[in-house]
């Protein structure tokens, strides 16, 4: 760490918001490795809550209401609002702040908008690092809001301790959450815009899916979220968590206390059964795999020239090689070059 970076870290720990903002920029630009290392030992205090769901379900409005609630309890709140980068232009419109005007002017709140920046499959490492920075900066709660669009919903489960999936009645397909993967990762299911027709039946449908689910299927949820590590005693069975279903009208701040209650219950559950550490370990495993993929690809690109790659493409196009044969050729070349 150079003196500049050291100062930034010190200022962030001391509560400087300008320093925090600048550090987050370096994190996004992947030029903060040394500073992240300095801050990492200070992470692990904040409760990280992921909020995901289809566009139009009211996630930002819900985050706004939930943050207000936590503020009233005297908790400080950091918010990371993630929006997709356009695959065509590389730019993005980050508009989640529009829904959070209630939070303006409060020094106990920090909102940062981030674009996905085309991360290779799922949540960008930068987003996870941003959460860590807010954690180390001393926020009690960190809310991460992402747009669920298939992959995105499942990805947030890898970075958050409590995952909230937001539904809204009347969006077309009856219950979006029934899509594979979403029920599995949700710790709390919220039916927002519950003043609209269909809210009650949406909530009932979700509860039915959860309650009537086969116990073995529920075991599947838990296994996916915190797989027992080889050295865990097999007899140790934690009681299962069944997702709560909460109805809210975020715009009117209704149902927020029930939501906060469900989150608190989940936190208690994770902490009392020591699942919090196991969940964290599983998440780190997955993060390391994800980062390794990027790092290895980068290394491969450094070692294999454009011409060599083009040759492989040519051979496959000419049907001399199968794609798999091309891969094997590239890998052999890689080994030969080392």
């Amino acid at each position: 760490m150079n003196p500049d970076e050291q100062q930034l870290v010190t200022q962030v720990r001391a509560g400087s918001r300008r320093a925090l903002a600048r550090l987050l920029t370096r994190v996004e630009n992947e030029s903060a490795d040394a500073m992240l290392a300095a801050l990492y030992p200070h992470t692990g205090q904040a409760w990280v809550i992921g909020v995901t769901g289809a566009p139009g379900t009211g996630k930002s409005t819900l985050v706004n209401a939930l943050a207000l609630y936590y503020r009233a309890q005297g908790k400080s709140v950091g918010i990371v609002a993630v929006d997709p980068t356009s695959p065509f232009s590389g730019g993005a419109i980050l508009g989640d702040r529009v829904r959070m005007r209630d939070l303006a002017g409060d020094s106990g709140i920090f909102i940062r908008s981030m674009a996905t920046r085309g991360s290779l499959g799922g949540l960008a490492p930068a987003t996870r690092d941003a959460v860590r920075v807010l954690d180390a900066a001393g926020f009690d709660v960190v809310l991460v809001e992402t747009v669920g669009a298939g992959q995105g919903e499942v990805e947030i489960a890898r970075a958050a301790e409590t995952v909230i999936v937001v539904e809204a009645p009347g969006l077309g397909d009856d219950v979006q959450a029934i899509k594979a993967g979403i029920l599995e990762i949700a710790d709390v299911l919220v039916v927002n815009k519950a003043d609209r027709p269909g809210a009650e039946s949406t909530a009932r449908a979700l509860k039915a899916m959860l309650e009537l689910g086969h116990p073995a299927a529920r075991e599947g949820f838990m296994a996916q979220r915190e797989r027992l590590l080889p050295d865990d005693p097999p007899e140790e069975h934690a009681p299962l968590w069944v997702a709560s279903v909460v109805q809210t009208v975020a715009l009117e701040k209704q149902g927020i206390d029930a939501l906060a209650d469900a989150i608190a219950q989940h936190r208690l559950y994770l902490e009392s059964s020591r699942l919090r550490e196991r969940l964290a370990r599983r998440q780190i495993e997955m993060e390391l795999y994800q980062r390794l993929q990027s790092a290895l690809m980068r290394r491969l690109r450094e070692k294999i020239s454009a011409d060599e790659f083009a040759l492989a493409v040519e051979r496959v196009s000419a049907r001399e090689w199968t794609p798999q044969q091309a891969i094997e050729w590239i890998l052999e070349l890689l080994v030969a070059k080392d």
Partner: protein
Amino acid sequence: MSTIRVLIAKPGLDGHDRGAKVIARALRDAGMEVIYTGLRQTPEMIVEAALQEDVDVVGLSILSGAHRTLVPLIRQLMDSQGLQDVPLLVGGIIPDADHEALQAAGVSAIFGPGTSTDDIVAYIRQVAARD
């Protein structure tokens, strides 16, 4: 080069946001990240957002005529919060007679109706060069 981040804000009671949204989309299409604040922002809210989002440039859209009051105030607030190096741009309805006063107050550029978005993109790319 790292991605340019721009704040587009609508200060005061001005409810006309079509222009701001057109600019926001143009900047996005030029590969920039645009934090759009929405309507009815106070100067304090705008500067708070600029600080938290660590933007390279702040753009204000004002069609209400309140620019002589709002713009210098926002520039001052930015300076007092450590954002003195962040250029402030203004678009909307700004009479020619007011340009000098705004420039004296610290505005980097004024883009009136009919300005091409290409010009705005080029300008921002130029002034956003950072450390």
